[in-house]
């Protein structure tokens, strides 16, 4: 019950911030995919930079466990291509589709129904996929620091510096 309430409150805060940043809109999402509007990239990278520092601090202090997903090249690459194709058609991603519906953009509803349908199709394709794409290039739970064999903080600092340079460039070319 407590976990449910926390989920709801966390979602409300996230939905509020997404709406305020105007990143829920189809025009913003297509604008990012067409490399015409970097609002979403600014929003996402800012969130990643801040969260990265906080999560690794918690991790170093033993107060949180990381949730690292497996790197499986076949599933990651084929899945990413399909995701990108679908995202370009829908113009919302799974989380933002609910947010878009919340601000009245009800074309998101057809996308939400499509996504539930896609999930049901995936459940049927799963046995076939475990014998194919999931067997291609499985590197296990890989992170950048572990792959480079170095401590995570230099990687985090480098990531933040690159992000800041990217932000500076976006502002310079007014993207």
């Amino acid at each position, binding site marked *: 019950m407590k976990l*449910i309430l926390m*989920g709801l409150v*966390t979602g*409300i*805060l*996230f*939905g509020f*911030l*997404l*709406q*305020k940043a*105007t*990143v829920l809109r189809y*025009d913003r999402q*297509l*604008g990012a995919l067409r490399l015409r*509007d970097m*609002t979403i990239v*600014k*929003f996402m990278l*800012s969130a*990643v930079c*801040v*969260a990265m520092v*906080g*999560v690794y601090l*918690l991790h170093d202090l033993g*107060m949180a466990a990381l949730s690292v997903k*497996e790197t499986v090249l076949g*599933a990651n690459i084929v*899945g990413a291509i*399909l*995701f990108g*194709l*679908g995202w370009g*058609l*829908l*113009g919302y*991603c*799974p*989380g933002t589709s*609910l*947010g*878009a519906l*919340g*601000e*009245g*953009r*009800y*074309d998101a509803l*057809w996308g*939400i129904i*499509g*996504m*539930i*349908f896609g*999930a049901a199709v*995936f459940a049927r*394709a*799963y046995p076939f996929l475990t014998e194919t794409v999931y067997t291609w290039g499985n590197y296990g739970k890989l992170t950048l620091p572990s792959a480079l064999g170095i401590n995570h903080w230099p990687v985090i600092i480098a990531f933040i510096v690159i992000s800041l340079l990217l932000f500076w460039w976006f502002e310079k070319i007014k993207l």
Partner: protein
Amino acid sequence: MSDKNQWNPYLAGGLTGIVMILSIWIAGQFFGASTSFVRTAGIIENLFSPERVQQLEYYVRVAPRLEWQWFFVVGILLGSLAASKLGGNFRWQAVPDMWQHRFGNTPVKRGITAFAGGAVLMFGARMADG
């Protein structure tokens, strides 16, 4: 496209990062959304054919039940509704502006594309475990 109630994306993004940290710290929960679509599909299928759901390995792995993330996703809708109503930019719209400029006011075409896009997107998202 920009409106007066819009927040700076760096600020809103940074605040989102803080919400993420608090969520991981307090609840031990990482942000995500696509798993909830699998759970919802399973819940709907359970209404019609529970035996079928039990036979599908993926629904055993991602059980058809409501948990933290499902309420998180519902929360996104409520938070966006509150922000847009308070900010005065809630707009009931069937066809996005950019779509209208390119394809005209074509809600059926938009609806079919959105459905198809959603299905392909979710298949890919689950495959890549995103």
